[in-house]
């Protein structure tokens, strides 16, 4: 009975070769094994979005992903959006600070990841599109308005271009 598999994946651009239980949650691998504690556990059930990361560019709840399904995957966590040696934060990160989109901060990594996923696909979303894209991320502090305004501010900072809508 194999309790561990060999999984090769990259996290924030760094390659990892891990002997790990394939059923270990990606969330736990990130936090406990790799020390990337920016990704949070809010519910462990995929309801709150605090654990959101990008896997091959797609928004996922890391509490629901067994690492055994991530052979060759490229994972991006909040730490990967603006590395410590980056000259500046991404527009969405700056906007969250300027618009009061964070209070206690526990939802913030997941919110920023989800907002980033939206803006990658739809650089100029409507408010309705922002609400839909962030519907899987819960915040107990801000009442969401500051978060939506941060996304709108980040969108205004993006150059105008052909918008590809998620929904035709």
């Amino acid at each position, binding site marked *: *009975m*194999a*309790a561990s*598999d060999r999984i090769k994946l990259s996290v924030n651009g760094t390659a990892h070769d891990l002997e790990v*239980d*394939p*059923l*270990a*949650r990606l969330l736990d691998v990130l936090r406990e094994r790799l020390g990337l504690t920016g990704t949070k556990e809010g519910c*462990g*059930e*995929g*309801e709150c*979005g605090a654990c*959101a990361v990008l896997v091959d560019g*797609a*928004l*996922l*709840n890391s*509490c*629901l*992903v*067994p690492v*055994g*399904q991530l*052979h060759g995957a490229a994972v991006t966590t909040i730490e990967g959006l603006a590395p410590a040696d980056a000259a500046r934060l991404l527009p969405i990160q700056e906007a969250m600070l300027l618009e009061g989109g964070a209070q206690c901060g526990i939802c913030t990594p997941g919110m920023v990841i*989800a907002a980033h*996923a939206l803006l990658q696909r739809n650089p100029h979303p409507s408010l309705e599109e922002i609400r*839909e*894209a*962030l*519907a*899987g*991320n*819960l915040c107990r502090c801000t009442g969401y308005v500051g978060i939506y305004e941060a996304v709108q501010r980040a969108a205004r900072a993006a150059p105008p271009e052909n918008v590809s809508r*998620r*929904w*035709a």
Partner: protein
Amino acid sequence: MTAPAGAGPQAYRWTRPRDLQEALELMAAGDLRPVPFAGGTDLMVLMQMRALPPCHFVDLWPLTELRRIAVRPDETVLGALTTYTEVAEHSYLQATYPLLVQAARCSGGWAIQNRGTLGGNIMNASPAADTPPALIAYGARLELASVRGRRWVPYSGFHTDYKRMRREPDELLTRIALPTPLAPPSGHFYRKVGPRRAQAISKVCFAGVARWEGDRVAQVRMGLASVAPTVLEARETADFLAGRRRGELDLAAARAVLDREVSPIDDIRSTAAYRRRVAGNLLEQFLTGTS
């Protein structure tokens, strides 16, 4: 049924098959109960709750054979691993099966939709699931595969009781076929009633497809969730409605027929009385709002 106390991750086995054939062989192996694992949005929650007895997970995620969407003149065939996102972003499905697209868009949120699959939604067999009413309304058929061969069954009636279904233990759901609807999209109606538009389990969910000839109901099929131990096809109501003209339709009588077909309960999300009332309301919205 809960896992034995102290059953940690070592109680489960995990195998990643090379291809569908190997997956089917794993499903037929007798040692530890094989459980197909797709996107994991249901199974990981059960594991976290320690509500899954020891089993052998068969990882379906790499099986590209189960991901194809094949559009044909008479039907569309979707692989069981088609995710909600793939459904929602597919322009032909948007145009032809709008109810399935609406269902996919209101299941969870983006992070769930990127991993949740149609096959997983069907085989998890929740009576409150969001895509089944649309699948019922579109007359879906399921392909079940095993080492012994493949067979197609109607999705309506596939679930026989709460979380029970017409599936042999070694069978895997591989494809879902949707006949091309005869009714134009103006005859399609879907509404999920719940506490919010995302990350919510429905109190009542209704999907209906009606082909109207003028003001006459030529053909109708309806699926409902959260009003019975399984997803429900409202056959008696459809029989009552077929051939009737909108102007002559006794809505109260139609509601009464539907009320006889549903068997909702009181639970943490809603009451039987509310569900009966809202199911009837959704039927009326469907009948008065489609053409």
